[in-house]
């Protein structure tokens, strides 16, 4: 009851932001509906990409938040080096990421073999593999955004919580994470947008077809070279609108944490 009323308080306080979120979502859905009414887009690739991006967002948020906390730990050995390794997917060619994925998670790798013996299948050339491949590119964006969020939490709040008897985990989950929420949510959105558009690593590790269906970004090329330019255009347009919407909301959230930033 208490928690429910507190949640209601939060929602009321954030109604402006929630309205903005809803309007953006409505515009994105409106545009997709309009494109659909103008001759239709091919839904399977889009649906596949949305599923991959959604799962990748969940995966990168969990892994990324844990990784960020680790990277913010001042006594971590070789912290700057680990930080650089976490960020390197931003600058590496996607093919190199795909290559590393095959080497580390493929059928010949230790992880691949362990996965096979536990779950009885493989990761490479599967939907799960596509989620992992898409997550590789998203992870650095998520880590950066979550980090801005966590660093924006004033130490006086965590100190106050500690003097009120809260241990490290309780401080993290009840004070740090809720106060860093704009950064974490922005990270999720950036990660989603990045995963939605992944091409190279997915192609390399999960192949051009997952259960016979290409992802949206692969489909754009297939349509274009298959002389279906209208469909390539529609798919590109829908992905652009989703991307702009996500980045717009993520920027809004990031600016909330630094109200003085232009």
């Amino acid at each position: 009851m208490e928690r429910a009323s507190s949640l209601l308080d939060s929602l009321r306080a954030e109604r402006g932001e929630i309205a903005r979120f809803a309007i953006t979502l409505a515009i994105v859905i409106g545009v997709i509906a309009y494109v659909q009414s103008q001759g239709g887009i091919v839904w399977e690739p889009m649906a596949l990409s949305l599923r991959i991006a959604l799962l990748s967002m969940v995966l990168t948020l969990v892994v990324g938040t844990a990784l960020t906390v680790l990277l913010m730990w001042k006594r971590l050995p070789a912290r700057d080096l680990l930080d650089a390794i976490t960020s390197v997917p931003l600058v590496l060619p996607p093919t190199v990421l795909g290559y590393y994925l095959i080497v580390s998670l493929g059928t010949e790798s230790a992880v691949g073999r362990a996965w096979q013996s536990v779950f009885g299948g493989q990761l490479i050339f599967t939907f799960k593999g596509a989620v992992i491949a898409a997550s590789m590119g998203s992870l650095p964006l998520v880590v950066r955004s979550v980090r801005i969020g966590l660093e924006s939490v004033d130490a006086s709040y965590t100190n106050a919580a500690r003097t009120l008897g809260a241990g490290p985990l309780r401080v993290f989950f009840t004070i740090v994470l809720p106060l860093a929420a704009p950064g974490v949510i922005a990270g999720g959105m950036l990660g989603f947008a990045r995963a939605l558009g992944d091409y190279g690593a997915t192609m390399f590790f999960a192949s051009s077809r997952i259960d016979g269906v290409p992802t949206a970004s692969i489909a754009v090329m297939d349509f274009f070279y298959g002389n279906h330019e209208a469909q390539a255009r529609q798919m590109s347009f829908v992905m652009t609108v989703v991307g702009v919407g996500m980045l717009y909301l993520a920027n809004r959230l990031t600016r909330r944490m630094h109200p003085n930033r232009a």
Partner: protein
Amino acid sequence: MLSRSSEFALDVELTCPHGITCIMGPSGSGKSTILAVLAGLQAPDKGRVALGNQVWLDRASGIDVPVHKRRLSYVFQGLALFPHMNALHNVEYGMQHVPRMERAAKAKALLDRVGVGHLARRRPRTFSGGEAQRVALARALARSPELVLLDEPFSALDRELRAQLVALVRDLSKDLAVPIVHVTHSIAEARQLADQIVRVDKGRVVARGKADEVLAGVTTLEE
């Protein structure tokens, strides 16, 4: 305790009996650092902190009780009320030792006790300066502390509000019967509150005693 900052080494020995000990001194003299060391938020190079028979810190024997296990309350200069929780939840936060079912009623009673029961459902950003101070005091009491630390909590308030809150702290200290360490710049506040005054300068205790003795003839503190 001995704690090193960039300008000087903090080297003080303090005994705080039940009642209010006011720590006074110029800005940067180490007042807040003393509180941070007592709370465990800052670790001195050498030193010992004990409350009655409980040793919280003893560098020599390697004892350092973590902050959350020291039964104390700390009202910070900026108050640090949690912005994402209403007043009631702020107060309940320190009530882990109270059965869950009883927390809300006890927190409400504490807010009533300091005169802000009507704010229970409101968030800190809607509070006036005086209201925020009262909620922070209620939250400090919620922990049933064995030591209370107040770091210039009234510095941002006007004279009238300050007088009201000083009277409130005086009342609360009688109910609590635990040591209260209050850092302040205000001589008037110290005269009204202190059972004991400790003056520090450049990290050392320069005077200690009853208000009348320590503040005799003092009208301003070099700040």
